[in-house]
């Protein structure tokens, strides 16, 4: 236990020189290129980068869904090559089970672990409350909005109390207002649980609103361009979005990101014109 405490002040998650290539021969795409950073116990880190820079690939590697990669993702001394019980994943696409009610969705991981029904319902209830869906426990996903379904997914991941919460653009499909308010919810939860969190996003305000640190990625091949510390006070709410410091951070990171995003756009434009020339 004591040694655990010592370590906990250190890194909960180490990403060490990770490389992932897809395809072979002439057609090799390097999706993730020598990426290294760490996430400390209780820290909220965001990875931000333009579309196609390898964020989801990194997410899948850390989650253990993509076992074949170079370098090492480590939790403690363990190199990840398959899903690890300490990691809980929230996916980019909507991922609730349409045939289960909200509470049965959230209790699902506990059901797999063989937790007794009454305890499982209690624990599910607790996390449903936490994401603010208490009055929808008996509802089916088809009766919920997109934002509510994402909250169900988050509660379902939190219920098994993962050491590390890993989220891939969980709010990408939502409008800006909903996103800011859900951001508040996430901040609250993270502070309540002291939850170590790695958030993948392409949304700048979201990243600054939520994070302790932001890892800025380059566009193809996906490298770490810069790591920015966000020294905004905690506890935080979406009110920080209006502050000067917030604007300062957004501007600073946008400076880095703009270059990458425009490279990405130029890339897809030239690909499109090549296709047009061929077709």
């Amino acid at each position, binding site marked *: 236990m004591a040694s655990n405490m010592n370590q906990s002040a250190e890194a909960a998650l180490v990403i060490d020189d990770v490389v992932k290539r897809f395809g072979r021969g002439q057609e090799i795409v390097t999706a993730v290129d020598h990426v290294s950073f760490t996430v400390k116990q209780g820290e909220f880190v965001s990875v931000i980068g333009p579309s196609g820079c390898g964020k989801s690939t990194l997410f899948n590697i850390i989650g253990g*869904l993509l076992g074949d990669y170079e370098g090492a993702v480590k939790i403690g001394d363990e190199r990840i090559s398959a*899903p690890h019980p300490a990691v809980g994943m929230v*996916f980019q696409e909507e*991922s609730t*089970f349409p*045939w*289960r009610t909200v509470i049965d969705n959230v209790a699902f991981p506990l059901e*797999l672990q063989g937790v007794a029904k009454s305890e499982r319902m209690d624990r599910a209830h607790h996390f449903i409350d936490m994401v603010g869906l208490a009055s929808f426990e008996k509802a089916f996903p088809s*009766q919920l909005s997109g934002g509510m379904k994402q909250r169900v997914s988050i509660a379902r991941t939190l219920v098994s109390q993962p050491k590390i919460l890993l989220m891939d653009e969980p709010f990408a499909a939502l409008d800006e207002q909903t996103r800011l308010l859900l951001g508040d919810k996430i901040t609250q939860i993270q502070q309540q649980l002291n939850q170590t969190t790695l958030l993948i996003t392409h949304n700048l305000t979201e990243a600054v609103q939520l994070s302790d640190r932001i890892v800025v990625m380059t566009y193809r091949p996906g490298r770490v361009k810069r790591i920015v510390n966000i020294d905004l006070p905690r506890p935080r709410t979406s009110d920080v979005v209006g502050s000067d410091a917030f604007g300062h951070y957004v501007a600073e990171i946008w400076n880095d990101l703009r270059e990458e995003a425009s490279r990405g756009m130029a890339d897809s434009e030239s690909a499109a014109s090549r296709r047009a020339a061929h077709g």
Partner: protein
Amino acid sequence: MAETFLRRRAPELFGVATLVASVLVFEALVRGGVVNRYIIPPPSDILLAFERVIVEEHILTRCRDTAIEMIIAGGASVLVGVPIGALLYRSSLWRRAMEDWIGALAAAPIVLAFPLFLVLFGRSPKTIIVMGFVHGLAPIILKTVEGLASTRPVLINVGRSLKMTPSQMFWKILFPSALPVIFTGIRLSWTFVLITIVGVEYLINLGGLGQLINELAERYDLPGTYAGICFVVMVSVLFFVALERVEAWLQPGR
């Protein structure tokens, strides 16, 4: 109030009205001599024949016989078809090898093969049940494969991230996700089963509702024959409405 009720029920009312209108048109055509009444009896005669058919022809026993055959054949095609579908989903080689054949089986007019089945199983309910089963099998297999294969990849990833075993993955994610499509297969299959069962009963003059129609036709009781046919149609409509209810009840929230 009355107006909204009418508007809400408009499709049903329109359907009933169309039916009544076409019955009246037939009545007029037959009575006017445009249609030969020895080919199509006037609808009013058919309506009157209903009582006779129901009272004198042991209709309940016949319904029961057909229903029992239906339940055995339909049940067997589900119990055999779903596991075969699951196996085909698992093995892409089998799937590619078999899918076209099973598709052909679904499209084949199996009723015409009744002499073969007659030789194999004799003039008994066994023949009827086996033929119904064979005809009902293909749609369930195909729809089971389709349903399992259309499971959203992200749901499978959720299962992988939770370290689910293959059997948990099947029973807790793949199967429930495929269920609506499998139900479509069951509805399709049971339509085939019913057609085959009533058809074979008619052809080999044995058992339930199909035989009833055969007997009435051989007695040249045309209004009775048509009443029998209408009765079968009505029973099957009721059956499939009930099936839809069961389906909705089994899958709340979809």
